[in-house]
């Protein structure tokens, strides 16, 4: 039995690592989405975290932990820098501005050869990231999300998400709350980028583009943005799906697309909404409120 387990881990440890890593990113986005920030900046944040941490370990000789922290911090700084102007934008404008940020970071990474290696990227990165690092990071982030949700901060964020006029009128500084979540999201994504860089021996600008950012959003949305376990479920599902569908190389892409569409259509509150009996009525109410907010603001 133990032999079987060790073989299982040897064969699938990378999948487990990827599930955890994607969950971590998923929680970064979960925080952003919890205040209605449909952010495509993930790729940019992860790139900042990854390149910075690799620079720290490989050029400056930092130990692993401070390097990851430095990467996360740089991404958080990036979030703070773009947050102030970008957070004034609403809805799709916000999404597109964050996308522009990711692309600008990617193009800089492509051209700044001396630090990033350009398109060739950086290889032979020491592998420091272990499964327990990732598990610990996910656990910490879940703890933070869980604790915040039950505090006055979480109440304020829930209000910001549903009706920011109400939130303001109750004394919530909507801008600062959204900014702090955006920065936290940047920090987590930066840390994930740093951990990813030290997991796969290699990073290149292609790892941090639009696809990365969109996938990251898919995790919490598929899993459910209202449930704490949503990002975890969504990330595991999305990571395992291409492997589970490997029996058919031909139809893999088509089946993956079809499954995602089916989830969205039949569980519009995300997979976790299965566990909420009252979801249907609630969804409709929430959408109306959101619409009312938009009207009041325009």
């Amino acid at each position: 039995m133990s032999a079987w387990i060790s073989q299982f881990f040897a064969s699938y440890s990378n999948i487990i690592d990827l599930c955890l890593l994607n969950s971590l990113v998923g929680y970064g986005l979960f925080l952003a989405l919890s205040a209605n920030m449909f952010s495509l900046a993930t790729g940019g944040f992860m790139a900042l975290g990854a390149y910075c941490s690799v620079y720290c370990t490989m050029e400056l000789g930092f130990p692993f932990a401070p390097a990851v922290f430095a990467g996360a911090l740089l991404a958080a700084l990036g979030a703070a820098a773009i947050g102030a102007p970008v957070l004034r934008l609403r809805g799709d404008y916000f999404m597109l501005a964050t996308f522009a940020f990711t692309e600008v970071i990617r193009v800089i990474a492509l051209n700044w050869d001396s630090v990033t290696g350009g398109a060739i990227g950086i290889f032979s990165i020491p592998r420091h990231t272990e499964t327990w690092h990732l598990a610990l990071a996910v656990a910490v982030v879940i703890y933070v999300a869980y604790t915040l949700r039950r505090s006055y901060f979480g109440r304020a964020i829930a209000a910001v998400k549903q009706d920011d006029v109400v939130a303001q009128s109750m004394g919530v500084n909507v801008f600062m709350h959204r900014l702090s979540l955006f920065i936290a999201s940047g920090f987590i994504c930066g840390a994930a980028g740093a951990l990813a860089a030290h997991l796969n021996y290699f990073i290149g600008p292609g790892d941090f583009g639009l696809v990365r950012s969109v996938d990251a959003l898919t995790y919490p949305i598929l899993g459910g943005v209202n449930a704490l376990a949503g990002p975890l479920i969504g990330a595991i599902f999305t990571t395992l799906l291409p492997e589970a569908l490997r029996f058919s190389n031909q139809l893999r892409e088509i089946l993956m697309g079809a499954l995602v569409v089916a989830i969205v259509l039949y569980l519009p509150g995300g997979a976790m909404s299965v566990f909420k009996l009252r979801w249907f009525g609630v969804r409709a109410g929430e959408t109306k409120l959101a619409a009312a907010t938009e009207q009041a603001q325009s």
Partner: protein
Amino acid sequence: MSTFLQQLVNGISLGSTYAVFAMGCTLIFGVLNIVNMAQGAFFMGGAYFGLEAARLGLPAPLALAVALAGGGLLGMLSELVIFRTLRARGGHRWMGLVASLALARMMIGLAQEIFGTQVQRYPASDLMQISWEIADVRIQLLQVVLLLVSLLLMALLAFVLQRSSIGRAIRTVAFSEDVARIVGVPVGRTILATFFLAGALAGAAGMLLGNLFNVVSPFMGEQMLVKGLTVIILGGLGNVPGAVAGGFLLGLIEVFSVAYVSSSFRDAIGFGLIFVILLVKPNGLFSGFEERRA
């Protein structure tokens, strides 16, 4: 000077395909306030519809009609399968984004299955080899034809939106769905028609670009989607004349940033500009053209 003029020709020619594609994206946004991420897949689909038609020996105008119809049908499909269902269920708007991306992914997979992953090209014709050299500037017949077709499509869309009954219905729904319902506009059918128009424009753009640059591939829509989003920010979300102007503008910006800055920074300049525009003038450069949606 001749280099400058040549770059101008390059930019206008590239910009015309952007403009046609972006008109569709912005139309959907104007009516439904959503971004349909599957537009890029309709663009790709239209290119293949046109390609198959051309291979069957249909003359180019008929092949274009097939591309238009094919793209339009794909557009309607996305409305019927995804957006209508989501509206009925009251799903969050994020869900529409995620679902339309997944739909695009399915369609790319399907195209790979049917047509293979390799790049294909439209059948070569001698007519298309004709080009003139005026004051050291190369202008191909193909470029001229395609520019004219683009302008025709723009005029056609303007006509449909401004003069036809379906156009009036679309504008009413864009103004307010409730108002449309009160005055007796069939909202569901009008939205379906909007998706058809948007898909048809994407499909036509696919065939135009496929012809102009000799490329038809399952992945051609991905980059175009990004360009389309960029253009509709430049022009203002939901602003159709803005999309046309933005399309040409983006074509020129790209070409001239290659010409006078560096090709390595072409996209950084484009996206940097977008970032700045969003912060300074979030309703687009041409927001004076049209009153913003309430």
